[in-house]
């Protein structure tokens, strides 16, 4: 039992990160109808900027805070630049054009990031203790061994999601974001400037990418493969529904837990490596039987 819980919790922790990346996708998709292929590249770019700034600023009084502040500023500038140079000129163009444009952004960010920050693997140490802790010794035989790093990561991600949820529910800008997600035309007619909302959404997506990048980067090192996290977010979105924030979170958790559990419990029978394809097969089943995802709404075309 203790072991099962260890595997489950380990999976959920990985799932939290998938959720974060998927959340970035959902925010942008809802607000601008754009499928942002560059979300993964944003994770890499944010993490690279952060880790390199940390190195440059290591002799200052607060390297961590300074690097964080500057990286946040970079992500805001990036959001503004994307709105000005890519979204605004393409407004009212078909979704596929915008999607292609985000492909361009992804390649640009990957290349540009490595050009200015270098393309080595950088270790990122943000001071989270790495030792595992033993919990529930009195409850289960042998207790449950959990990594502190994972728990901190899950906590940070959880707090971020809670803060975002509050922000969306309680504030004028949050309400404006939801309004834009529902109906562009009506949102503009009540005086919500779309351009401004897009900048905010891309900024928020950039911050989410930064958090995911820092957490993941401190686990695996900051390297090109971070950019591929986006590929894991895809099945999460299919599971959760492209337009559902809750779906992104739950979908990420299910896939995280599912892949670890199947690896450990099914691996011995059908061979290892399930972890690598579990998410995609699950997504395929969803596409067949519930294409709108867990929380998506079923659309029926008017004829």
């Amino acid at each position, binding site marked *: 039992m203790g072991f099962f819980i260890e595997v489950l919790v380990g999976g959920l922790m990985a799932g939290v990160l998938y959720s974060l990346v998927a959340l970035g996708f959902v925010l942008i998709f809802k607000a601008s109808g754009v499928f942002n292929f560059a979300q993964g590249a944003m994770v890499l770019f944010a993490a690279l900027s952060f880790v390199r700034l940390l190195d440059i600023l290591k002799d200052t009084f607060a390297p961590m805070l300074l690097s964080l502040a500057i990286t946040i500023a970079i992500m805001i500038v990036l959001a503004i630049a994307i709105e000005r140079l890519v979204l605004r000129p393409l407004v009212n163009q078909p979704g596929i054009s915008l999607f292609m444009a985000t492909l361009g952004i992804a390649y640009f960010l990957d290349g540009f990031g490595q050009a200015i920050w270098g393309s080595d693997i950088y270790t990122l140490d943000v001071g989270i203790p790495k030792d595992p802790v033993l919990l529930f010794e009195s409850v289960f035989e042998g207790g449950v061994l959990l990594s502190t790093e994972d728990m901190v990561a899950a906590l940070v991600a959880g707090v971020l999601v809670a803060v975002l949820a509050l922000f969306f529910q309680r504030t*004028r800008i949050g309400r404006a974001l939801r309004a834009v997600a529902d*109906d562009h035309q009506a949102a503009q007619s009540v005086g919500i400037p779309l351009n401004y909302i897009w900048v905010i959404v891309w900024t928020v997506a950039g911050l989410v990418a930064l958090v995911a990048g820092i957490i993941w980067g401190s686990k695996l090192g900051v390297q090109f493969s971070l950019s591929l996290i986006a590929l894991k977010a895809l099945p999460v979105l299919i599971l959760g529904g492209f337009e559902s924030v809750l779906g992104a979170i739950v979908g990420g958790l299910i896939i995280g837990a599912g892949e670890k559990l199947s690896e450990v419990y099914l691996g011995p029978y059908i061979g290892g490596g399930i972890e690598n394809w579990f998410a995609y097969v699950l997504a395929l089943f969803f596409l067949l039987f519930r294409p709108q995802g867990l929380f998506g709404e079923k659309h029926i075309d008017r004829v």
Partner: protein
Amino acid sequence: MTAVRSLGEPILSMDSISLSFGGVKALTDISLHVRKHEILAIIGPNGAGKSSLLNVINGVYHPSSGSVTYKGATRSQMRPHEAASQGIARTFQNIALFKGMTVLDNIMTGRTLKMHAGFFWQCIYVGKARDEEIRHRRKVEEIIDFLQIESIRKTPVGRLPYGLQKRVELGRALAAEPELLLLDEPMAGMNIEEKEDMSRFILDINDEFGTTIVLIEHDMGVVMDLSDRVVVLDYGRKIGDGTPDEIRGNQEVIDAYLGVAH
């Protein structure tokens, strides 16, 4: 008839507005005035260009030629959120509410331009942002009272019947405290009782707040009762402009409605 009410200067003038979509001429050389505090009805057969006219006024469509003068400033085009910030609010022919949000939240979005707390304060939701939220909430509750929709305050609008959705959309427009209110078929698809309620709201808004109203409506009874002036469109051209009585006797208008060959 409400014609005794004295009407002011033009608040909005359109000068030779034309608009086309590909080969379709939606509006051809339209000029008209909207006077302060009046209720102006726009009528005409389907496809006449009525909605397009409203869309030009609040900047959803940009005319291919002509200009619009609003409150003394002449522009060849405007963007919707600029129109909103200049005191123009509207409803849409096909209800455009935020379906996932509650009635209260929908009407709150109407206050967008009246709220100023900065991004930072909103993030931490203290002090100014919180006071502001509460103050505007009070105003929104007044509108909810006015429109008699207290019982559905917390209902997501997607679940409401059509007639009530129209009312909520009016509430959202009212929340902006507009000077000029554009209503695109506010009573379409309503039963008689709902139409009477809506008519009363429109008259009250005009009376109590002095709001200038431009409305598109098909029900001639309603148009004759509500409006100070009527503009008639047909195939994108203006074929009539006058008091309801004048319009009733206009031969060209009668022909357009009876479908006489052009």
